[in-house]
């Protein structure tokens, strides 16, 4: 079987390429109730769980709405847009991520509400003071294996 291709990130300059190397970093094990999220990710869509009763989205995916405690849940396609809530630069890290250090992790406030964790792209980890809280970001997906495309966020040039 042909290994999954992956988009390769060459550093903060944002140069992209593609190769046949396998994704070396930890890949999430898909849950029993999160299939719509991962199906969406494979199609380049960011899917969010939404409560049909109170109308609010929530993140991460639940078995019950954490706002009104209804179990009448569905999924919506999100815009993939958001802003940086906060960030940090990881210098001392472990496992496969070590090769990429330093890199910038960030919590992203999604346009639809709720917050996601990401590794931020399009920023310079050596100049953390230049990263702006509130800066606009857009989701992009990186194929990790045939089933799992992982969402990351990239700073959008103003």
């Amino acid at each position, binding site marked *: 079987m042909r290994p999954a291709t992956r988009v390769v990130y060459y550093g903060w300059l944002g140069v992209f390429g593609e190769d046949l190397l396998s994704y070396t970093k930890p890949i*999430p*094990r898909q849950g029993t109730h999160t299939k719509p999220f991962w199906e969406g990710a494979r199609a380049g869509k960011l899917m969010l769980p939404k409560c049909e009763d109170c109308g609010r989205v929530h993140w991460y995916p639940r078995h019950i709405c*954490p706002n009104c405690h209804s179990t009448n849940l569905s999924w919506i396609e999100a815009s993939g847009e958001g802003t940086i809530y906060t960030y*940090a630069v990881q210098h001392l890290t472990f496992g496969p991520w070590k090769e990429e250090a330093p890199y910038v992790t960030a919590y992203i406030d999604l346009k639809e509400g709720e917050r996601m964790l990401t590794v931020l792209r399009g920023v310079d980890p050596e100049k953390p003071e230049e990263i702006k809280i509130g800066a606009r970001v857009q989701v992009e997906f990186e194929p990790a294996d045939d089933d799992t495309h992982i969402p990351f966020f990239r700073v959008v040039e103003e």
Partner: protein
Amino acid sequence: MPGSLYKAAAIAGAAEANEIGFLKEPVTSLQLHIEAIKNLSDQTGIPISRIDGVFSTGWSTELCEHLGITPKYIDTTAVGGCSFEMHVHHALAAIYAGIIDIALVSHGENGHSANQLGGRGVGNYAAGAGQQSPAFEMSMAYGLGSAPSNYAHAMVRHMHRYGTSREDYAHIAKVSRDWATLNPRAAMYSKEKHPFGGPITAEQVEESRVITWPLTILHCCMVTDHGGAVFVVSPKVAAGLKTKPVWIAGAGESMSHGNMLQMEDFTKTSARHSAEAAYTMAGLGPADMEMAMVYDSFTITAAMTIEMLGLAAPGEGHLPWKDGRAAPGGAFPINTNGGGLSFNHSGMYGMPLLIEAYRQLSGTAEDGVHGDPGKQTSARTCVVNGTGGSLSTTGTLVLIADD
């Protein structure tokens, strides 16, 4: 004659997960928990949002986060199959004491499904959902490691919101080291004791190696060895002892989240709620406190906690250290043992906080072995605050000296 807990509480309903047995579609333990809780709520008419105490075998933080509730009594007793009977006992006592009104005791265990999910032992007894948690599933890909990798995000947000600088927080590490140099038991007591021990400057804190920007290594607690214990006794027992009692005037606990994904405001911890409960129980307030022992996993943790305890205005949590009030000889001593930053931090630092608070308020804070004077203060009241997880859970005590 019945005991004081006689008929102090009742069991109001009982429900199970939707499907139980040998399930064809594998489920997680978390799902079994949540289904049973939802069904119990429907059966009794008690809204999930009204639950104010949660009892489970190690699952409580995760269940509360998943349900979006923040109870004021959190129990995770996990001693095997009889745990749930004990949970009922503990809930009875908490209700009798007037701390809570509605206790949830919950169980979920995918003994069969776990085999199919390939995770036998994961997400089962006393372990939380672990790798089967959706919060883990949605955050494990992003290269976070140990505590500083996450706490640093709170520091950046706090600095952004209040316009503080990393150097402001460096004073916390510097002053904590000053306290440690008065404590021969402190890991960083002196250069003789540890090559990196002895006094440090705020500049050295700033110039030390970056772990997760903006946290340098001297902004971070150590990882050491520690053992400790305290007795909690009745007034009657306390009266007949050789040791001085230190009275528990107030106690409170709270939580805001488990995974930082769910932390609504990265500049606030649930200590504001646990402290309010403790102060209210004690009939005292921040102005009545004469010293504080607060968990300093990182400099930012200590600063944020001081704000939550009402001992500093929001954004000014670093000031007691920067202006010297928290330092040896200062008007409001904080972390007089040297803290997790310079005394000892084995991983869970709650016990050293208690021990030092007891020593200070019982007048035994000078080191008993070496006889070094120095760190004993004149404080008669102390607020103690422990922080757990990723700024997730907090417990606050208000302690007062004997007469």
